[in-house]
């Protein structure tokens, strides 16, 4: 894209109104063109003034703690909060897995840009790699969730099977591009396609769904499906025999 083409698009680029493709083209140009980059920076500064000019609203008292928790949890500085009704796990290894993986949580790629989405997915994959030994030692099986035709997003599911008589658990974590807030329904399916377990996936629970069951046999789970609000499958994948698959 030429400088003329970029400058024609800079106001809308600064306002966040360009399409993904156009914004990406502009960004690539700005990486090497100092003149256009300077103009873009000036526009961003001007627009920041507009936002800062707003009448300040009263902050919700609990918001600071929510922000601190999300950032420090994502940074691995604190464990994710225990969910309501979660029973004490017998397998401490599983708790360690949850603490390690749960710190990434729901991730929404900013502005639907391809590189942000990819970076977030890579972070999620890196995180899972880090706890691979833990998952393996807990007897875990993993499913890589891939988008169905026409959809975007990726996800990972891990099914942990405790020993006989102990709790079994599965958790599902997904990354969706853009400001795609869901909610989504997660289903663990057996070989016949019957739903063994289902749960809701939305930003309110950090994008992480935990199933913890005693007595119900998660060993029969062979695939995971993520459905959108219309009941259409957007992500899915088989649960493989071992984490190393």
């Amino acid at each position, binding site marked *: 894209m030429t400088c003329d083409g970029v*400058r*024609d698009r*800079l*106001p*809308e680029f*600064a*306002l*966040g*109104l360009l399409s993904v493709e156009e914004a990406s083209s502009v960004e690539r140009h700005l990486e090497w063109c100092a003149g256009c*980059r300077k*103009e873009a*920076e*000036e*526009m*961003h*500064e*001007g*627009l*920041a*003034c*507009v*936002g*800062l*000019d*707003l*009448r*300040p*609203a009263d*902050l*919700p008292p609990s*918001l*600071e703690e*929510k*922000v*601190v928790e*999300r*950032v*420090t949890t*994502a*940074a*691995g*500085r604190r464990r994710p909060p225990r969910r309501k009704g979660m029973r004490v796990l017998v397998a401490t290894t599983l708790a360690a897995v949850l603490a390690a993986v749960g710190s990434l949580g729901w991730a*929404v790629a*900013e*502005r*639907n840009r391809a590189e942000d989405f990819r*970076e*977030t997915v890579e*972070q999620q994959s890196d995180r899972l790699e880090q706890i691979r030994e833990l998952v393996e030692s807990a007897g875990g099986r993993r499913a890589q969730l891939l988008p169905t035709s026409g959809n975007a997003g990726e996800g990972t599911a891990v099914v942990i099977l405790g020993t006989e008589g102990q709790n079994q658990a599965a958790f599902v974590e997904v990354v969706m591009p*853009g*400001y*795609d*807030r869901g909610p989504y329904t997660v289903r663990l399916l057996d070989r016949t396609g019957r739903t063994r377990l289902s749960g809701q996936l939305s*930003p309110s629970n950090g994008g992480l769904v935990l199933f913890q069951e005693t007595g119900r046999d998660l060993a029969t789970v062979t695939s995971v499906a993520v459905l959108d609000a219309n009941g259409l499958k957007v992500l899915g994948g088989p649960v493989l025999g071992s984490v190393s698959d």
Partner: protein
Amino acid sequence: MTSGHEGPLSSEVEQKLMSQMVAGDEDAVRALYARFGRPIYSLGLRLLGSREAAEELTQDVFLTAWRKGGRYDPARGRLSTWLMTIAHNMAVDRLRHDRGTGRPAVLMLEEIPEPALADEEDALIERDTAERALALLSATERQLLSKAYFSGWTAREIAEADGIPLGTVKTRLRAALIKLRRLEAEHARTVARASEGGAS
């Protein structure tokens, strides 16, 4: 919980706080929230129209700032600009995604903010600059920016709604943004000269 600073933070302090936040330092997160939480939340509330959405946006913005903190370059602009850009872009993404379901009405920028309350002593000094800059735009320019900035209308949508050529809308938008920036820069130089002169 506040940073204890009055006036804008130096770029060195901003960069240090960002580095600390990227490392997960809780105090740094709280300092940045004390500094920027309110304008981000206020922007979210204005664009998205609900406290719940504004809360989610604020959390998402800080999480994104943590994730991208390594890319923040103070040589390219102030931290307030960087964070407000992230906030606005995320809010517009949601706004356009939800378009047609409770989108806030177009809001004008002629509103005069209430005087700062006693407990807002740590409010960003940039707000004073912003008020001056916006007041010097024409009514047409403010209205145009309002549609684009607060309602997420593209230049084409504005052109169609107002019945004016697309090129005219783009030209006016560009001029308004450049004027905003120049007014803000002039004010910053004035403040710097007054400070160097030891003006009281």
